[in-house]
């Protein structure tokens, strides 16, 4: 099956300038050789530490941020070869939902104008636009009567519904959701999560779903890609990842994920050490300064992403040992 979205060796590098003379002090390799696929109708979750490059990757996939290198194929098209006009057309089919429903909606536009923007950009008639807006608002659980209101007249959850309605205009096949519910209440999160799942079932959407809530990811996603310092370190179907995570960083993530049981407070599961600076990433395996299993080779050479089980790729020199001995489940992380 050809993937809907095929990202290969994608890189996004930012030059960093410092000091009074604004000298170039280095390069942040925010995304550094990422390959991933999103298939039709599936949800691929992207998880990882703050600053590991998730949002940059998401923006690069839509070319809202120009990649420094790599390939991007979407619905069979080579996106990086498209000119502005053709890219604009491609963006009808790939849309984005942002984390912050306050910041991502223009406060001076009415809900109808926000949701209808895409219709205008793509040259639809007024009538098509109004019909489309009414349909979309209804689809996300609001009503056509909300079209005349301004963003500040809505609650956070309602604003996120508007953000989703905007993303669904003109029938995209891929929606990139960058932490779409993180800013919302638990009760509203549940409403939006249900809405996203319902829309996926009805419209056959694919999601690239960025989240830091591993419990939510387990609930919503089909597969997970774990990112660390600009690279994918593990990709796996939900069941394998949660039952037998193979990368020590993934194990740490799962261990750090808070439990609702007050008698299971984590004591020693916080990964030790500092989050490395993406300005000067560690040599070899980027996780080695925090990894309890690091061996000499980990400092010297970066491990390749290897397939250790069907659909389960891991970037770790030692993962093969654990894949071979799955009973070795609970790995203590930290000291």
């Amino acid at each position, binding site marked *: 099956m050809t993937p809907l979205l095929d990202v290969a060796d994608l890189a996004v590098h930012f030059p960093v300038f410092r000091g009074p003379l604004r000298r170039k002090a280095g390069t942040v390799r925010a995304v550094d050789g990422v390959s991933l696929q999103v298939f039709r109708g599936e949800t691929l979750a992207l998880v990882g530490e703050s600053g590991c490059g998730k949002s940059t990757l998401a923006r690069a996939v839509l070319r809202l941020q120009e990649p420094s290198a790599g390939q991007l194929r979407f619905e069979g098209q080579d996106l990086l070869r498209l000119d502005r006009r053709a890219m604009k057309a491609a963006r009808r089919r790939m849309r984005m939902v942002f984390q912050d429903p306050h910041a991502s909606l223009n406060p001076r536009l009415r809900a109808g104008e926000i949701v209808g923007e895409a219709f205008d950009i793509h040259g639809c008639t007024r009538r098509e636009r109004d019909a489309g807006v009414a349909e979309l608002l209804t689809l996300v659980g609001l009503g056509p009567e909300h079209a005349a209101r301004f963003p500040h007249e809505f609650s956070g959850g309602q604003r996120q519904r508007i953000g989703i309605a905007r993303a669904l205009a003109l029938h995209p096949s891929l929606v990139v959701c960058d932490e779409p519910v993180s800013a919302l209440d638990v009760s509203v999160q*549940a409403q939006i999560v249900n809405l996203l799942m319902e829309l996926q079932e009805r419209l056959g959407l694919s999601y690239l779903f960025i989240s*830091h809530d591993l419990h939510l990811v*387990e*609930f919503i996603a089909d597969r997970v890609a774990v990112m660390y310092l600009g690279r994918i370190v593990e990709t796996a179907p939900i069941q394998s990842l949660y039952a037998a995570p193979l990368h020590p960083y993934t194990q740490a993530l799962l261990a750090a994920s808070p439990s609702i049981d*007050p008698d299971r407070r984590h004591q020693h599961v*916080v990964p030790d050490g500092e989050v490395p600076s993406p300005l000067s990433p560690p040599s070899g395996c980027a996780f080695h300064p925090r990894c309890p299993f690091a061996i000499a080779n980990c400092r010297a050479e970066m491990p390749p992403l290897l397939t250790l089980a069907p659909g389960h790729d891991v970037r770790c020199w030692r993962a093969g040992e654990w894949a071979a001995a799955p009973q070795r489940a609970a790995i203590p992380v930290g000291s």
Partner: protein
Amino acid sequence: MHEGSIPIVNAMSDPAAAVPVLEVSGLRTRFGPLRAVDGVSFAVAPGETLCIVGESGSGKSTVALSIMGLIPPAAGRVEAGSIHLAGHGELRGLADAAMAAIRGRAMGMIFQEPMTSLNPVFKVGTQIAEVVRRHQGMSRAAAHDRAVELLRLVGVPSPQMRALDYPHQLSGGMRQRVMIAMAIACDPMLILADEPTTALDVTIQAQILALIEELKQRLGSGIVFITHDLRVVAQIAQTVCVMYAGVVVESATTRALLRTPLHPYTSGLMASIPAAQPRGTRRRLPVIAGTVPNLAKLPGGCRFRSRCPKAFDLCAEVEPPLAPPAKGDPDRLVRCWLHADGVAA
């Protein structure tokens, strides 16, 4: 994290028995016609973490801002109640200058949105140093060194270099660490944290929760921690207040609240937390339907009534009081007629 390195000044085994760091009673704050906080009381002991959870708009931040004396006078005011800070007495009605001296020194605040509280045109090191200079009268150079030390303490990598960064050059987690560094710069006795980990991923969240816990132990501070994440509550709180539409609807020890939620809103919150479910099927999360009522024109009766699956006649007529449940633990409080003495079965 760094066990052994922290002198634990607060070794109290029972925080509830100690004199509270902070005592809030009958707090009412309104913004024009809108009663954002409508009679809220709680106390925090030294070394205790009290979590306030609740729907967006329920008044959590307003409680924190009222305590800090930061309600913008043009927008609203604290109308009633008392805010008592150990060693400083009643804070309500203090002059702005007196309040400013207490803020930052005796109370540290970690805000919900670091980007709106950090000044975009100053380097983060300079902003932290400024707090130190203002409250502790250090020299510029000493304050800068202290700022770097604080950045290291809150786990910012390459703190020397990062101190020279502007806020927009940092990721969300790093900005939140900078906020924490500013809040703890003067070893405050009370830390007010308003959703400090909401935008962070789990390892960073776990580190920041551990960091706050460590600082609490080291300073013996009391912490008011606002969050909407019950898992975070489970990890850090000794006691919990659940707010809804300006009032506390339930308060209890963390264990009691999470094991046996009494208020229908609390139960609804617990149910809507995502957890693993079998694949393939039409998976859905249980939701609390509807939205929060308009605080400017609250209907009579129970504030949760429009969304409550268990509402009955009385709920529309009279607002239930916050009281110990008729059956069970006398130490907890709940605002629901289902648990009132002699009302429901």
